[in-house]
């Protein structure tokens, strides 16, 4: 019987601004080419996160859409944390990343409660941080990877003391433009500002997340067979060049 990876995609109707379906397409294609099935279940406002979930995905939205789902997400903290404890992996991008923290305070001081799953909080800044980014991260000990993407956020995200970032900013702003941190890593859960979408040009990150999800399903993290990633490398190289040339300027 084919092994099936179950993905819960939270708020696909509201959090989809930066081509989040590209990330899902990458999960699907890279699973299927290795003989695994990928089942994607959309979870909307008021719906329950499916049980037996291997991977949770949250994308980004415009302020209006984020405000629509925020109260629902804030009530889900325990549900998501339990899924993580049960071994699920998680990827949250941009708005989804911010709202997994404890909260978001806008410029008028109004606080939007987050899910409190990730050890961070976000405060609105004066100017948006927009541009190409490159970061270095170590998903596994002593394996340094470069991840590239595009960021466009007004929020400054601060990690709690001792919390781990996804990586260190090489070019671009990252979480807040001055800590040098980008994203957050909590076990098998990753939050990041990098979209573009993130996964097509960073296939190693997609594979790491898939391997973690499969680890839950199979009882141990499998070694995934390599795929032909020539085009992915090309796209990665171009994006890295852009981050070098024009990453991280206030506009």
């Amino acid at each position, binding site marked *: 019987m084919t092994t099936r990876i179950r993905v819960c995609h939270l708020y696909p*109707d509201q959090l*989809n*601004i*930066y*081509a989040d*379906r*590209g990330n899902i*397409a*990458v999960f699907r*294609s890279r699973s299927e080419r290795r003989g695994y099935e990928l089942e994607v279940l959309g979870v909307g406002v008021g719906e329950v996160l499916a049980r037996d979930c291997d991977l949770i995905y949250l994308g980004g939205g*415009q*302020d*209006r*859409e984020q405000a*629509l789902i925020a109260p629902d997400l804030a009530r889900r903290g325990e549900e998501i944390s339990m899924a993580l404890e049960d071994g699920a992996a998680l990827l949250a991008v941009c708005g989804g990343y911010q709202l997994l923290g404890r909260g978001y305070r806008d410029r008028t001081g109004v606080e939007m409660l987050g899910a409190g799953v990730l050890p961070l909080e976000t405060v609105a800044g004066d100017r*948006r941080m*927009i*541009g*190409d980014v490159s970061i270095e991260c170590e998903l596994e000990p002593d394996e340094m990877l470069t991840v590239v993407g*595009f960021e*466009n956020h007004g929020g400054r995200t601060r990690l709690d003391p001792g919390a781990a970032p996804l990586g260190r900013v090489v070019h671009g702003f990252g979480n807040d433009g001055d800590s040098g941190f980008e994203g957050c890593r909590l076990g098998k859960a990753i939050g990041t500002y990098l*979209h*573009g*979408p993130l996964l*097509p*040009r960073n296939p190693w990150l997609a594979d790491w997340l898939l391997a973690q999800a499969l680890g839950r399903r199979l009882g141990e993290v499998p070694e995934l067979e390599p795929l*032909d990633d020539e*085009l*992915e490398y*090309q*796209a990665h*190289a*171009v*994006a890295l060049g*852009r981050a070098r040339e*024009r990453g991280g300027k206030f506009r």
Partner: protein
Amino acid sequence: MPGRVLNALDPGASSRLAARLEQGSAIISATNGKTTSAAMTAAILAPRFRLAGNPAGANLSSGVSTALLHTRGAELGLFEVDEAALPRVAEALRPRALCLGNLFRDQLDRYGELELLAERWRGVVAELPAESTLVVNVDDPQLAQLAYGREGVIRFGIEDRRHGGPLPHAADARYCSACGVAYSYRLAYVGHLGEYSCPGCGFERSQPDIWAEEIELDGLTGSSFRLRLPERTASVRLRLPGLYNVYNALAAAALGYALGAQADEIASGLESTRAVFGRSERIEIGEKKLLLLLIKNPTGANEVVRTLVAGGTPKTLVIALNDGIADGQDVSWIWDVDFEPLLYGLERLIVSGGRAAELALRFKYASFSESQIDVIPSLAGALDRGLELTKEGGELVVCPTYTAMLELQKVLAERGYADLYWQRAARAREESGHARGPE
């Protein structure tokens, strides 16, 4: 760029220059189609007024100011204005008619979120003189909301349910701007333009004053429809393809009507309009032809895809993706385009431009075989490869983003293929300030 200098030296100059136009000014703004709509409106109004206008694409406040410097002898100003530049230009010009065509998600890295833009347009409408006519596309709920309760509004839309479908993935404005509840769509024509109603507050699309019905789309050639004006009806045959150009024609018809044009003038103006600079423009290259279809955001690109499929999916296709400021530096939008309908007939895809590899990935992850994709970042190289695969007498379809189109135009000019219109348009653009660069 005299307009930019002028604006810097004398911020009030544009207003005074505009006041010289004895018939006042009219403005067209939209995310998609403003250049084509402006060309159509100019064709409608040309028999009636001596017009001043900005050349295709010079649509920021500096471009409008430059155009205002050259208005001697003109009676009416007709300007296409960038959606973000609209507040500034409308304040300076105090137009007698303002036509708002549509508002789609476009270049979030430059324009910011759609809701912010809608908010700024709300301000523009609030500041519009009471005696000015507001012309809006009633199929766009955001624009219908802007016009709600105002006197002197002309609403246009499509009334032909045969051309409607479900709301596409890339649809914007899914939620009511008045109460936040998701609109219920009976059908959508282009992006989120369609027949909607809000289950929350009851806001719904109202009957347009000017509409198109019995629309027949004729592949990549054009379309015909019946144009309904208050008390008059006209048959119109467009030389531009696709439902999106029917919307462009309706915007022009409604604005022309607002400025006093008669039904026959409107129909003949629409029928005489040919492709504008890269918007379904055809160029002859020896025995072969090139068809250029500009793509710049998900909704626009979706309509180009739909039109290509309706005309018989080309076997060879060139798509060129650049990531300059004018294209949007964030290329994630290509993942929101529904390219999938092309995959059934397409045999060879040539991806080009600075982000060619990213485009290749978009198709690869849509299950299009890598062996059918050529990655050729150079526009000249991609053009050669495409022409090599095009039969004598055949047509090569090229879909470039904005700066890729400019580059392609240069390549064609160097080879002696660009026609005079292009060279003229290019000169005009250089004189009046680049279209979509930063202010």
